[in-house]
Every structure is written in C-alpha cells, then in structure tokens.
C-alpha cells in the first residue's frame, strides 16, 4: 500500500512539475510569415498586387485633391446625410485645412488620404525579396521589379505634388532601427525629382510596351505609362510652384539645407519637353490616338452636333479596352456616377438613391468657350454682358437644349465640350436609355418640384450644374438603375498633347510650333485652330502670339479639355493659379425657385479660403513632434 502511494505521488508530481518547456511552445513551425510571401511565383505575384493596392485606391474622386480643390466641383457641407461621400476633401476650399488633423492626409494615411509611405515600404519589400521565388522566370522578374520601381516612383510623386520636399525612401529602414535613425529628414525638391526620374528610367526599359494579355493584365504598368509619368513629373518640377518659387526659399531643414530651389531654371522645361515628346511618340507608335465615338447598336443616325458631343462625352467613358486614347487608367471603375447625374425621369426623381450632389459652379461653366472656340468674354459675337438674360430654345438648338425650353443665354452658342461635359437646366441628355436624337431627355432642374431639382437636403445639387462628363451615356437612372461602368483615365493622349504644347511654349517656342498640338485637341472638339479662332473672333486677336498670351490659352484649353478629370486641379497648383481661381465666391443658381426669372439669379455658395500656404499640404503637428528633424511647410 505504501509503495502504491509513493508511485501515485511521484506520478502526479511529475505531471505537475515543469519539466518540459515544450508545453509552452504551442506555435506550429510553418506559421505564415513575410518569408512565405516570396516562396514561389504565385505568392510573389500576390505581393506585387499588394504594391498596386494603394494605387488602385486612388480612384475615389472625393479623396483626390485635384478633384476636390480644383474649383470645378462644390459639395455642400450641410447635407443631412452625406450618402457615403466623405466631404473632407471638398471642404478644404472652405479653409478647413489644419495642421492638427489635415484633410486628405497622404503622409499619414488619414482623412481620405492613402498611407503612401506604407505603399513605398511594400514596394521596397518587393524589390528586396524578389530574388527568393525559385520558379520566377528572369523576364518576369525584370518586369516585376520595373513595376515595383514605377510604383515606388509614383508614390513618391503622390507625396511630392502635395508636400514638395519629402524624405526619399529608397530602402526600408529595419524594424529595429534606433529612434535616431527613423527620424528622417526631408530631401530637397530637386533630389526628389531626380530620384523619381532615375527610378522611371530604370523601370521603363523592362516594362512591356503594350499589355498583350488584356483580359488578365490590363491596368498593369507599361512603358508608355512610365514615360508619360516621367513627363508629368518633369513638367511639375519645371512649373512655377516648384521652380524657383520665391515663397519657398525660406523652407530649410534644421541643418540649413534649402528644400526648394531658390532660382528659376529654364532648362527644366527642356527636360520636360523632351520627356513629353518621347511619351507621345511611344504612345502614337503603339496605336494610341484621340478617341471618337463608337456608336452602340441601337444608336441611330446622329446629327453632326450630337456626334461631336458624343466624341467628347465618350472620351473618358468609353470602354477602356476599345478606347484608343487612354494611356493609363486605374482598374477600379469610376465609383460616383450617381453623384454626377441629374434625375431625368419621374421615377428617378422618386428614388432615394440618385443624389446628383456634385455641383459645378457657374465659374467653371463660364470657362468653356463659345462655339467659336474662344473664351466667352473674348468672343466679339457673343453677348457676354447679358448672358444671364433668358432665351427660349428653338428647333435649331434641339440637340443641345430642350426645344422650347427657357433658359439663360449663357447656355446657348457654346462649344461642344460645354454640352458634352456639363448638364444644366434645359440641357439635352443623350442617353439614360434614350438614344433617338429627336426625343431625348433634357434636364429640368428648377425648384423642388422639378425632377432634377432639390428634393431634400440629401438629394440636392446646389448650383444647378452637373459634371455630365463623368457619367456614361449608357448609364440609366429610372426605376432602379443600370450603371455603365468606365475607368477614369489617369493619363490620356489629349493631356499629353496639351502638356507638350505647354512645355514648348515655356521653352519659348513660337506659336506656329506650339499651336498644332493644341489644334489636334480642338479639332476633335469641333473647334477651329488657335490662330484662326482668335484671329477671327477674339477681342484680343493676337493673344496667341505672345508667350504669356499663349500660356493663358494653353492653360484654359487644358482646363476645358481635362475638366473634372482631376488633372486641372493639379495643374492649377503647379501653375500657381489656384489662388486666382478660388479668389471669387463660387456661385450657383437659385435652385429652390421654379420660375426661370427667379431661378437664374446667381447665389454665392462658397466663399473659398485659399492662401499661399494652401498650395502645399501641412505636415501633421504630431509628426513634427515625433520626428524633430522634419520641418513644416510654408505658413502652416
């Protein structure tokens, strides 16, 4: 009996004693760690897609500073319900930007901004580990490295446009870096530009010229994309905002290193021009050309005016695999068509989901040319002074304005891009299910009784203008909805032409050399060439002959051609013209009124607040405290 107890005792003691450390080692050996992301080609491709992930998140217009602060769109700040649109970006022009919690913060990835430094880190991780997968072919490896380098350069560019001087992150800092090492400094603008260009130069040769397997790979980076982005980067660096901007001379690192170039360097335009031309050449050599309307089966005969309008209206909304003009578009579809479209039918008006909230201010509408291809205040034949007087549409106007509808004179005799890009009270809407040119919808936007009028404080367009360009004509909002998707171009050929024209003019090239590039774009828009239009119709017929005059023409042409594509917002910044564009109150019509006489009274809707400091984004206060080596941007 005694020994029995002893054995029992010993056994239990053995169990309860800590003899084997293994008991606490509960984790299996092959738990997924980052090493597994590069075990084989399949996993590595997945990681490559992670590098692209942030890029594809840039698709939301409400989070794109080029869209929300371009003076092209206003979005109310007092809606009862924002319907899923974060208004932060749109509110920035109201002076809400701050250093505590900046809006569209791409540095930290907050308030609508993407965490860009994380994206860069992923690209670096990709490049560091790409040699590990054993089953990755050499060609594919080269291409993937090139893509990762492109993405790294582009993410730097995303930051560069917003902050100017940024810390270059060529290699990842190890996780266990000392607290001193992680306190990186901002690198000077020129260094950042050179770095981005270097990456793109390294990447371009290894990228495919065109995507062969469109079904699986469309949207991946190509050589034309890399070269076009390079041209954009160099043009941005050559532009007044960054090229010897006197405002920024004072911004220096704590060690005294200047972050912005102090003197203007004209040769930067030479580099930009060369890059733009190279990009255009490779695009054209690979079949990229300006888009024209490809009629769908049930579209009948069209008048020339409608054809021209549809050439333009489908420039960005055409399916991307058949759209010849797109150099680069992001894969996710444009997500906010319902905010851009007026309600055209009784059923649509009764539906709760068709908001139509993105509102174009009167100033943007007035940017578009007359039908003679010159600005409305320059056209000798166009009654600029009385443009808010009423006029009733005639049969001849029926492809633009609802027949017999009373609207303001300003809506008559405008260029086709005006009718293609903007929906206004009385404006014809080709599409939404109707494609017979003799019976089309037209917008009825006056007062809350009208289909497109303000229904409540959620479904409201506060100016009376919609960015029609952003809606596919095949999209139908009626009883329920059918959205015809499209991809918003990041870069299209017309934009490259305009960019090249700009660089040529800045180089001081004569109008004869510059104008043809503009005229290509104007011809598609059904407009005469620069020289002819100005000479014939402008109150300032020789405007194009001076560098300044031509610059104005190029800038306005760009803003019209690329309207609502986010590019004008970025261009206005680099030109240092955004302050001017936001110097006047943004206006809209008196939308609650139903009679034309009361409706067509401009109301001040937003009094923009835009100072010199708003050209660049503030770095969050907290970041400056955490990293004492960072310096703040001007006046923040």
């Amino acid at each position, binding site marked *: 009996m005694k020994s029995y107890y002893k054995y029992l005792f010993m056994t239990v003691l053995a169990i309860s004693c800590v003899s084997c450390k293994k*008991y606490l*080692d509960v984790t299996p050996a092959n738990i997924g760690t980052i090493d597994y992301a590069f075990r084989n080609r399949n996993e590595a491709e997945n990681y490559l897609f992670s590098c692209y992930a942030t890029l594809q998140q840039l698709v939301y217009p409400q989070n794109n500073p080029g869209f929300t602060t371009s003076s092209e769109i206003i979005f109310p700040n007092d809606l009862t319900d924002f319907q899923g649109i974060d208004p932060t970006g749109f509110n920035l022009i109201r002076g*809400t930007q701050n250093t505590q919690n900046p809006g569209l913060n791409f540095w930290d990835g907050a308030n609508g901004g993407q965490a860009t430094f994380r994206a860069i*880190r992923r690209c670096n991780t990709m490049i560091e580990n790409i040699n590990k997968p054993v089953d990755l072919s050499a060609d594919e490896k080269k291409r993937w490295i090139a893509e990762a380098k492109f993405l790294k350069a582009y993410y730097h560019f995303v930051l560069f446009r917003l902050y100017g001087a940024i810390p270059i*992150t060529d290699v990842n800092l190890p996780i266990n870096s000392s607290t001193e090492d992680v306190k990186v400094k901002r690198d000077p603008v020129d260094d950042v530009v050179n770095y981005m260009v270097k990456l793109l130069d390294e990447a371009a040769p290894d990228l495919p010229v065109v995507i062969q397997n469109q079904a699986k790979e469309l949207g991946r980076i190509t050589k034309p994309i890399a070269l076009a982005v390079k041209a954009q980067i160099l043009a941005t660096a050559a532009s007044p905002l960054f090229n010897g901007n006197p405002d920024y001379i004072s911004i220096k690192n704590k060690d005294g290193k200047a972050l912005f170039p102090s003197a203007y360097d004209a040769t930067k335009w030479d580099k930009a021009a060369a890059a733009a031309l190279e990009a255009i050449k490779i695009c054209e050599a690979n079949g990229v050309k300006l888009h024209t309307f490809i009629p769908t089966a049930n579209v009948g005969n069209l008048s020339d005016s409608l054809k021209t309008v549809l050439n333009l209206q489908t420039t960005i909304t055409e399916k991307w695999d058949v759209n010849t003009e797109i150099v680069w578009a992001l894969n996710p579809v444009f997500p906010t068509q319902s905010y851009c479209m007026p309600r055209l039918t009784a059923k649509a008006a009764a539906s709760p989901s068709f908001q139509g909230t993105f509102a174009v201010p009167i100033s943007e509408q007035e940017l578009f040319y007359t039908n003679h291809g010159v600005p409305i205040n320059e056209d000798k034949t166009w009654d600029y002074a009385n443009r808010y007087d009423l006029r009733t549409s005639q049969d001849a106007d029926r492809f633009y304005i609802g027949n017999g509808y009373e609207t303001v004179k300003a809506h008559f005799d405008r260029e086709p891009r005006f009718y293609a890009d903007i929906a206004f009270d009385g404006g014809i809407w080709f599409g939404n299910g109707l494609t017979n040119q003799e019976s089309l919808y037209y917008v009825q936007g006056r007062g809350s009784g009208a289909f497109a009028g303000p229904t409540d404080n959620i479904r409201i367009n506060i100016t009376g203008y919609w960015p029609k360009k952003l809606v596919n004509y095949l999209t139908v909002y009626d009883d329920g909805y059918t959205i015809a998707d499209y991809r918003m171009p990041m870069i299209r050929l017309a934009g490259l032409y305009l960019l090249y024209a700009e660089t040529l003019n800045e180089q001081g090239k004569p109008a004869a050399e510059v104008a043809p590039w503009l005229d290509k774009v104007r011809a598609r828009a059904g407009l005469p060439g620069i020289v002819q239009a100005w000479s014939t119709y402008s109150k300032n017929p020789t405007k194009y002959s001076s560098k300044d005059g031509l610059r104005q023409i190029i800038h306005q042409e760009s803003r019209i051609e690329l309207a609502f594509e986010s590019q004008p917002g970025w261009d206005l910044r680099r030109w240092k013209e955004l302050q001017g564009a936001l110097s006047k109150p943004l206006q809209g019509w008196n939308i609650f009124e139903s009679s034309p006489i009361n409706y067509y009274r401009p109301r001040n809707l937003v009094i923009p607040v835009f100072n010199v400091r708003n050209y660049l984004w503030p770095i969050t206060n907290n970041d400056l405290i955490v990293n004492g080596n960072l310096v703040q941007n001007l006046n923040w």
Partner: protein
Amino acid sequence: MPSGYIKKFLLIMKMTSFMLMLAFMQVSAAVFSQKITYVNKDATLKQVFKQINKQTGYNIFWSPKSINSNHKIDAAFKNASIDQVLVTCLKDFQLTYLIEGKSVIIKDAPVVNTPNVTDEAAADNTITGTVKNEKGEGLAGVTIASMGDKKSGTLTDNNGRFVLDVKDGSEIKISSIGYKSQTITVTAGKKVYNIILVEDVTSAETVVVTAYGRKQLKEAIVGAVTTVKPGVLKIPASNLTNALAGQVAGVIAYTPSGQPGQDNAKFFIRGVTTFGYKQDPLILIDNVELTSNDLARLNVDDIESFSVLKDASATALYGARGGNGVILVKTKEGKAGKAQINVRIENSTSQSVKTLELSDPITYMRLFNEATRTRYPLNPIPYSENKIINTQATLAHAPGSNEFVYPAVDWMNMLFKKRAPTQRGNISLQGGGGVARYYVAGSFSNDNGILRTDIRNNNNNNVNYKNYQLRSNVNINITDKTELIVRLSGTFNDYNGPLTSDGSLQTQLYNLASHTSPVDFPAYYPADSANLHTQHILFGNSPAASGTDGASKYINPYAQLLSGHQRYSESRMLAQLELNQNLSFITQGLNFHAIMSTNRYAYFRSYLNYNPYYYTATNYDKASNTYQLQWINNLSTGNNVAREYLNYTPLESNNSTFMYLQGVLDYAHTFGKDHNISAALIGTRQQTVNSSVNSGNTTTLFTSLPYRNQTVAGRATYSFKSRYYLEFNFGYNGSERFSANHRQGFFPTIGGSWIISDEKFWGDLYNVFDRFKLRASYGLVGNDAISDRRFFYLSDVNLNGGNPASFGTNNAYYRPGVSINNYENDDVTWEVSKQTNLGMEFTVLKKINVIAEVYKNNKYNILQDRASIPTTMGLESGISANIGKAESKGIDISLDGKQNIGKSFSLAFRGNFTYSENKFTQYEAPDYPEAYRQQVGQPINRQYGYIAERLFVDDNEAANSPSQVFSTGGFAPKGGDIKYRDLNGDGKIDAADQTFIGNPTLPQMVYGFGLSASYKNFDLSGFFQGQAKVSFFIDPARTSPFIKSPDSYYTGNTQLLKAYADDHWSEDHQNLFALYPRLGPDGAVIENNRQNSNWWLRDGSFMRLKSVELGYTLPSRIAKSLGVKNTRIYFNGLNLLTWSPFKLWDPELGGNGFAYPIQKVFNVGINVNL
C-alpha cells in the same frame, strides 16, 4: 453635494490617523501589563490559571486527565512572565504548554512513559445537549471535542443537538467558526448541557482561504487578504458582481448597465493599476480560473468562502496572472450529519432608478424651429404653426384632433414598462457520514426586462434571462489519510432579448427612443377600412426622402422593439477531481493535494425577426377627420423588404475547453515549542482552447492555438511563538505568449507579520486593543495578459488579404494581396508589478474589528505602442515595447463591530472604504512642447479635452476670438457657442489646447457602510454604498437635440432633454453659462460644442441606499409545528435611494445616459431550513 463626499473622506482619514496615533500611544503606556502578580501560599492550579486569564487575557486549556486542577502550589509571583508562572505551575507534572494566539494549551510533555496521575476512576458518561446562538437558534455543525481525549468528539446536528460519551470531569470544548469557543467541565450526574455560544467579533480564529485554497488562521496571514462573509453578498439581484461595490475593502466597482444578463459590474482590485491590456483581477472558483461572468452567476448560498487577495504576498503564487489581484471563491462542501435541506425562494420587481426626462412634443417642435432659425435664418423652418397647433390638439385630445396624422408619441412610455418581475429560487442538500459527505445544490433565476410586448406580435421581444445551476460536491474518505473530492457543476444561461444592430446584446432601444422625433410619425396606425384584414401591425414611419437601403426614412422604435428578438444559450459544465493525501508515512506533516479540473463551454446565438410594414397617413381631410394609409416600404428587393414571417439568422457560436492540473506538496512542522515552519511546492498547468465561429470577429490560426500557462510556485513560512510570522513566496511562471528567452518569469515576495498584542509590553493596552497585528509585504507579481496579440515573437502576416488589386479588362484577375498585422518582436516580456503593502489589524474594546492597509504598486514593463516611430517608416502596424510604467497607491479600511443589548437586541455595524489613486510614471508620447499635454504624472483614465470658459456673448465676439473651427464643414462658432481657452496662446484652438480635465472616469473612492439590528425574531439591516472622486462626460454628440447621433444606426433626430429645453442659450435668453449652448439643427454646425471639454464634465460621485432588508424568523415552536427547522421571511430592496449632484440620469451609468437604466429592486423572499 460633492463637498459632502470630500468631508466624509476627510473624516474617515482623520479617524484612521487618530486610531493609529492612539494605538501607538497605548503601546508605550502599557508595556508591563503581561506580567502576573499573584501571591497565595495555598493556591490551586485552577486559581492560578484564573489569575493568568484575568491578568493577561490568556485562556488556559487543560485536560483533567493529565492534570488535577486542585493540585496546590505555593504561588508567589511578582511581575512574573506568563512563562515563569506556567513553568512553576507545571513543574510537578510531565506536562508542557503551548501558546497559540491568546490560548495556552497544556499538553503532555514529549516523554515516553505516560505518568498515570489522572483520575482513572472517572466514569463514562453519555451527555446530551443543545448548542444555540444568542438568538436561541440551534447551531448545526458545532464541534464538541473532549479536551483530554482526542478520539472523543462529535458535531451538532441541524437543530444544534449533540450526544457525546465522555468521562466525568473531562473538559469539553465547544467551538464553531465565528463563535467564541467555550470549555465546560462535565460533572458527574449532569447529563444535559445547554450551551449558548456567543458570536466572536474579534474573529481571531477565522479561517482564511488563501492562494491555492490553503486554509490559514487569520492570525497567520501576512499578506493583504480580505475575506467577505458570503452573506453580505446576498442582494436581491441575480448578479453577484453587483454586490461587490462598497462591500469589499480594496475593490473598486461600478455597474454601467441594468439590463438583465448584461449587468455585470466592472471591478478592479485596488483600482486600475496599469494602462495595459488586462486590468481586472484573476477569478478563481474552487481553484479554477473562470470569468467574471461565471462569478456573476454564482449562487451566493453555495459559497463557502470569498477572499480577495490584494498584495504581492497573497498573489505571488499566481505569479503570471495575479498582478491585478485575485478573487478566490470556494463553494460549500458537505458536512457530516443528517441531511439538511435549505430552500430559498425570492420574487422581485425591478424598476428604473431614474428615467430620462424629455421635453414635451410642442417644446420639441418650437425649439427645433428655433435651432433652424438661429443657424440658418434663410432656410425654411421644419415645423409649421399649423402642425404645432394640431399636435397641441392631439395632446389635449381635443375634438377633431387626430393623433395619427399629428402624432405626439411618448416613445419611452411606448417601449418600456414601469416594472418587471424576477423570480429566483435555490435548494441545497447536504449531509453525509464518516465516509462520504455531499453538498448538492440547484438554483434557478428568471429575470425579466422592462421592455413592452404587444399581443398582436408573434414573438416575445422582452429581455428574459434565465439561469440554472447545478452543483454537487462530494467528499469521500477513501482511507483515513486519503480524501477524494468530486465537484460537478453546470451553469446554464438562456437569454432572450431585443435585436441590436451592432451585434451586441446591450439593447439599443433607449438610444433609439431618445433619437426619434416624437412628432414625425405614430408608433402604429389602427387598421383602416382598406386594411381590415391585414395580419401585420401597421407601423408608422415617414416616407424616405433619401437613403439607399429601403424606402422608409427612419427606424420606428416600436417596430424595432416588436420586430424580432435575439437569443443566446450558454452553458458551462465543470468536472473537478481533487485528491488530498496525507503523506505522514513519508514524514509527519507532509500532505499532497492534487486537482484535475476541466470544463467545457458552449455558446450560440441567433436572431429571429420579421421586417415591419411601414405606413404613412396621406390625403388627410381635416373636415371629415379622415386619412388614407399608404404603404411606404413597397420594395421588391433589398434587405428591408417587408415580411410578415420570421427570418432566422444564426450568429456566432463558441466552444471552448479548459483543462487544469495542479499538484501541491505541503509540509508543516513544529520544532521545539515555538518554531513552526511550513513549506509548499506547487505545480500547475492550464490550457484553454477556443473554437469560435464568429460572425463579427475573425478567427485566426493564432486564436485557435491553445492558451497555456505553467507555474511552479513555492512557499516557505516560519513563525515563532505564533507571534512572529515570516513568509516567502515565489512564482516561476511560464506563458506561451513570449519568445523562448522571455517565456518564464520569476516573481518572489516576502512578507511578515507581528502580533504585537501578544507581546508582554502590550500590557494594559489589552483592555482597549485586545488584538493588534502589524504586517508588511513586498514583492513582484507578473502579468502575461498584456495585449490581445498572441505571439509577440512571431510576425502576424495575412498572406491572403488586406491589400487587394485586380487587373484585366473586367478586373477579372484579382489577388487579395498581403498585409502585415504585426511585426515580430522577440523582446516583449512580462508586465511586472512591484507591490508594497502595510497592514494593521486590531480589535477595539473587543467589539470593533479594524483592518487598515496602505499600499503602493509600481507597475513596470507595461506594453505600450511606440509613439516614437514616424509614419515615414511606412510600418503597417504599430510596434510595441515594455516601456510604460504606472504607479498606484491607496488605502483600504474595513471595520465591523457588534453589540448585544440585553438578551434580545443586537446591533452590528460594518464599513468599508477604498481609496486608490494612480498615475502614469512613464509613458512614451510625442514630446509635446506644452507641459499640460504630458501624460506622465496624470492619473490613468483621466480624460483629455478643452477648457471651456463660457459661451460666446455674440457672433462678434466669436469672430474676434482665437479661431476654433472643428467642423470639417468649416463652420465657425457663433454667439452662444462654447468658448475654449487658448492654452498655448497661439491664436487658434486646436488639439494643442487640450489638457487633462476632471477626475478619472473610474471612481477613485468607493465606500460602503451598513447597520443591522435584530430584535427577537426580527432583523433589519441597511447598507449604503457610494463612490467619489470620479468624473464623467455628458456625451454632447449623442445628447444634442435635433441632430443625428454620430452612430449611424440611429437615423432619427435626437430628442430634447427637458433640462436642455429649460436651460439653453438663445437669442432671447443669453445665459453665458446655460446648461446647453446655442441650438443647431445639424451636427456640423454645432461641431464646436460637441468637442470633449469640461463644459460637459460632471461629478460622478454618488451615494446610494444600496439595500435594506427586513426579516422575520418564525419562532421555533411555530416552525416546529410546520415541520421545518427554521424559516425566515424577508423583504428587501436594492438601490432604493440615490444622492448625487448629477440629476439628469443615474450617475453610475456615467456618460452613457441612454443606456438601460440601473434597476431598483423590491424583493420578498423566504428561506426554509428543513
């Protein structure tokens, strides 16, 4: 009044220090009083012993078998010590003596041959008797032991009766825990002994259960251990945790909600001592780690002992997990004897302590109009005068009024009843014989909520919480050295309650009712002619102006209430086997104790609901007072398609298994007469495995791996003369969370105590302080629950998601991408708490027991996210390190006392006081230039916000003050909005102007005191409980009228609190210190006022009359005639009265005023012993 609480606190502080001072003064005054002076040439031993007792207070026990008390000695003692006296007395006998506490036990000297000096002639005598308490109730289970004959002894039966065979002249000791022991001498011829035991107030002999279930005499405890009589935890609520606040010195507790099944108190031992992950204590029920939910469901009648281990010395053995204190509960075990049955039945009604006061619908509309006018003068006002007049008519039930077209709904009344019933019952059975003893108990409780139900409805939506428990503890003596204990218990909960949108169980209906306009739609319409045959309820709503998810504009709270319910079922089955083995065959004093315990937990939940049909009244014809109903949510697709039939949605389920092994080797030995040593070596292993299928949370590979702990702990104690105690403990703990080099943590502690009142110098002080003990402890305790992350030494990478991209014409080629949840970090290790505790226990005037303790805890290695890593690093997750430090200190005092007045009246008092303050001593935060933003030095849980100065006088002042724009819409403040102080003077108000405001949101002071009295068969007791030094914030974002709550679920406009309606800034009433600032009709425009600031800061202190109980015990003759032993009927109430400076809602809810209110309970119960 807050000042009242402060006064009270000061008073208690003063009392404490006064008593401390008194104590030390007395020590010096009475050094010699342990000396004995007695001169008597012909003194009997009895006389000498009597004198010893008289002069020193020592009780002397001897056996007449070995000593003839009539033996005479020549006593000539002058200032002799007790030792000298005893040596002199016993010099003629082969005897020695042992001093234990206040007792002197005279026993055989360790000599081989037993001298035969006792009176062999004493005859056997069978005596009988009863043992009763002062109330005359028979006491069961009282030990009757013959002093001389260790083999002779018995226990009283349920009625307190006993039978014992003893020798005449022998002394028998009658003892029972909680009562003063008595010794009587059996005299020949006397057969019946009726003994009345007096309750022992000093409770020096109380057994305290400490770590690993070790039973220790209270005197021997060196650590801070609070024991609670289970009886005081008996409140008329089905949740034990609700009783903790104010009942247990050292526990900070509060209850944030009153919803049945969701009303667990939050409790912290000695407050929150870390800003790390786990702040709440370890809970052990019968040595097995369980959750606070299991504690909450425990039936108080089943509890044998309830201890709270508070300092390092007490918790060290739990090392890994004891850093935040330990709650130790032991359930009852059977006692030998005839079967005893105890039945308790209770029936209660509960009602809200306080309900929110909302303004009337007319004021609501008028002020909504005011809010619109004052912010947007050009916008149309929301409610026309016509609507207001017609709604007034509705309220007045005027002829021609129509309550459906012009509704005025009291949603609170519509949704909630005034009262809800609860039933509870339990039965226990215990008994047994020499071989086996059993305790079997079952209990049942049925709690109902105060939600309304509707007979037209096809499902029950009210809160109903049922709890069943079964417990069986069986002790089997396999041999006289081996005891086997089998514990089987099961806890089963069934919950039925309202639907929620956020996946929680906490009802949202209070929120919904307070975020729904009273005038926009009626709760439901009566069937009109077109709907006479409609089967569903015609719920009211407004047609949606917008919204993508259905065509109704709002959520109708009544429809939400009725449209469905959720239910869950939870069960835990526990099986535990314990073995107690006396290993005296190896060496005397060695024992082995082993536990093997396992439990299985299962949980599942589901929703059942239909989708309401919503209607609105159209075509109202005032003349004929008729309208037509129009079906609103006339949808064909989507989630909100109206449906009459029930839809079933299964939700998460969870199963987990728990396994625990413990082995304890215990050794105790006495050397010589004064030296006691003991030692223990403990090994444990614990494992939990979860298999959860969650609808909301993700289950990962990591969470599926077993959670394990492994401990070797040890204890060594030494005591000298039962007066000086020294104890050393260590825990050597292992946790699976850490990397191999940090997996083990070693946590030693040391403690000691000194019963100073046993010293000779204590002398006369004994008359005042008949017991006085000092103790101190110091040591380390660890904590491995430092994060919700499992394995720090492994990176946590999601190789299949997080950063997706897709390519191809139609985005056909999609890859989910890779994301990093955590980086690997080998260096993360244990959080350690260095604890110092000083305690003092004394009894004053033999009536009042006081335990006072001061402590200081330094927590270090608190895991904290590195704040020094800039975002330019591009890390996808934070990196954390053991860098934080926090310090907490405080005092706990408990006192109790009892006084009998006359024979039938007795009075008892008890009080508890806990004060705990803490602060960050090291915290990595950005190096703010503003000193007032530094976290270090601030209490944990102290809130951060702006300093509100007052309201702006007018728009002009607002425009010319430092800019304060909070709204993302860019709305600048206007007159009547809150003006904040520009702390750094930079001309703008932003986060740099925030600082720490108010008291912490967790109470720093919790106290309770109660009085109970009994007179004959009646007893009455009352208990007050309170908290102080606590702040909370009214949540302006959720209470601001007319606007939408920031919680997306509440689509309606917030109701108007009556207090806001009565006192807000308006153009006509420009009160710069009004309760509520300028009104506004949407959130963006009043964003300025919704910031966290001391404008919304409130004092959260309160005092409650927590409970009152009146009981009546049936006189024994009546009870006897009913065939029961003992019957008590009682009536009690919970949360009866509340005093607080905050009036809008119950302050214990804190800022969460729209939650299910704390309940006031009235209860009637009966307790029968058979």
